[in-house]
């Protein structure tokens, strides 16, 4: 399963980021959202930027401690935070800027497709983000 993005439908409301951060942090914390919204200006156009869950995941290939592995159920590439050494190799390797470091807590953060039921797709009011099999 993957997220499919229809940027022309995005209104810039940030509901995807709000619910994403809440799912993972139990708080509304936009800086920790696993997806970002790119925009030329406040008036858009907007483009949700997300992890493609690449078949050949450059982030996982670049990880020196094999802390990124694919979850067979959701097919999402997931960071094992207890193994991650926050070296940033994955961040450099990702062609989509879809992974970032939380330096305070010392690990990399990326989309895990919420284990198979992504909040962003569920809550997006305009179907700018949809889940496809």
């Amino acid at each position, binding site marked *: 399963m993957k997220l499919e993005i229809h940027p*022309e439908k995005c*209104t*810039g*409301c*940030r*509901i995807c980021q*709000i*619910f994403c*951060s*809440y799912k993972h*942090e*139990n*708080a*509304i*914390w*936009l*800086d*920790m959202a696993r997806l970002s919204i790119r925009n030329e200006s*406040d*008036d*858009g*156009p907007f483009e949700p930027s997300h992890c493609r869950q690449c078949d050949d995941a450059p982030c996982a290939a670049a990880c020196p401690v094999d802390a990124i592995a694919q979850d067979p159920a959701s097919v999402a590439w997931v960071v094992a935070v207890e193994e991650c050494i926050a070296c940033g190799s994955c961040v450099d390797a990702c062609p989509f800027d879809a992974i970032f470091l939380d330096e305070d807590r010392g690990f990399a953060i990326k989309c895990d497709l919420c284990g198979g039921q992504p909040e962003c797709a569920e*809550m997006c*009011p*305009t179907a700018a983000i949809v889940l496809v099999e």
Partner: protein
Amino acid sequence: MFPYRAYAGKYLFVDLTEGRIESREMDAKLAETYLGGNGFGTRLLWDNVGPDVDPLSPENWLIFATGPLCGTLLPNSGRFEVVGKSPLTGIYGDANSGGFFGPELKFAGWDAVVVTGESPHPVFLAISGEQVELRDAGALWGQTTSQTETSIRREWGDPGVMVVTIGPAGENGVRFASIQATPQRSLGRCGLGAVMGSKRLKAIAVRGHGPVQIADPGRFLEVSKAMHRNIRGDAVFPAVSQYGTPGIVSLMDPLGRFPTKNYQMGSFPEVDQINAESLQARALVRHLACFGCPVGCDKLYTLCGGPYDGTSLRSVEYETLNSMGANIWNADLDAILAANRICDELGMDTISAGRVISFAMELWQEEILNLEDTGGLRMEWGDVDIALDLLNKIAYRQGFGELLGEGVRRAAEVIGRGSEQYAMHVKGMEIAAQDGRAQKSMGLAHATSNRGADHLKAFPVIDETGFPDEGRRRYGEAYLPEIVNPIETKHKPFLVKDGEDFGAIIDSVGVCKSGGSFVLAEVYWDDIAAALESGTGMEMPVERLKQIGERIYNLQRCYNVLHGITRADDRLPRRFLEEPSPSGNAKGQVVELDLMLDGYYTLRGWDVETGKPTPEKLRELGLEEVLERLERQGVGPRG
């Protein structure tokens, strides 16, 4: 230690005279009795800005406040409030905005910014999380609102900075100057932009990176998702989402509720040229939304070709399509957008700005004004060039614009010659784009609103066109059919009182009246109580929440009573009371104001003779000290 979640737990206190910035802890007792936002600001105004304070003096306070649910999972939880004494009305004043500033302030770790004093030179307040400083705004002074926002972001090097700012109108003390908030949202009413200007505070810019913590994350998620689901599933949702507030232009006109020529009429023959369909066909670029809003009533509009080619703006609302359209007998949609853009850039309320122009046009029609009065302007109905020129003159206080920048009440006092009867205001504030003759609840709402003629305090939308399903869902079968009939007076005191109290809560927690709580009518007392309880951890039975709403509204009223307001001020212009409407469904109707006021005061527990809250009501709301102060000042409830 502040015990409640969802709040940041502290606020900024800024004394501009001394250049002093303090971090102050939120008071738990204050949160329990007034929540935040509107309630927080009302209480601070009551405590700190007495009746002798001139609104444009350093002693006035300006309170920018988020609420506990601002910046959370709740639908459209991007709203924040500004409260201060209004230079337009001289009494309680507030304005409210969506966008992204409110949540950003919370993410930066602050529930509110409280400003007092007067800086010796122009400054702006820069808030980067815990780092807060006053910076020189000498180079920003004189800039338009979008220029200011762009300049601050460029200097800061971060496009994520959110800004509230005034334009030249606020700097120049126009009494209906707005405060504009990222992205092009307006804190329009009450002239609080002029208060910012008088303090030489050009802007507040904020960037935050922190979390908003929730007391009971599981339950809060459940409550929030149910609200999103209900709003998105509402039968009216697709229309509101597609058209936003302009969608009601076509609905209001046949009712005779679309003010035309300064309320001489309630329908506009060329309404089809300025309705939502025409607007979207002409200029729609894309749909936009405020923070966390599934409705997305905001749109980007751009004009291609024509005399205003390239004009680009968002938030073109029903109110402006009326005030700069039918109200001044103008069917040129492009000119409306141009006027809207000028008001946004120069920082003026489009409602009051349109109303001072229509006031002058009617005075011209009645030959009360001559060319000498107007500085050579022939104030003919529908002359958009003159209207656009006047908007600039108002903002820069030039020529005839200087007088109109004082608002219709003061302008009529200066002009005299019987002009007062054409000054369409209540308590000094120009009336919004409704007509009480066509919708009786709005007539009452305009008369009783604590900030002067205003639809948004009570916001009675249930009976606008008649929404029986919404009426039944919200109030029950017992109130039907009268409560949803716009020209029926029965149950309207109840509708207005309930709306005022609930609206005070909506403006205090930080969500939107157009995104479910009033428009769509999907979110009501029990939903907000559940969200507050699970979000903050504060015990919040529905009855307690209702009492908080009532307390806030009563304290605003007491603040006005302190300034001499009584039943005699809860009046509508003569036109609504004596001139039957010539238009549409309202034909032949006037507003039966006294009848509704009697019912309203009785329902409120206010004295029917004086319109003041009774001692019993104030004691019931825990406002004994308020009662004592009113009596000490000689304006007590029995006085």
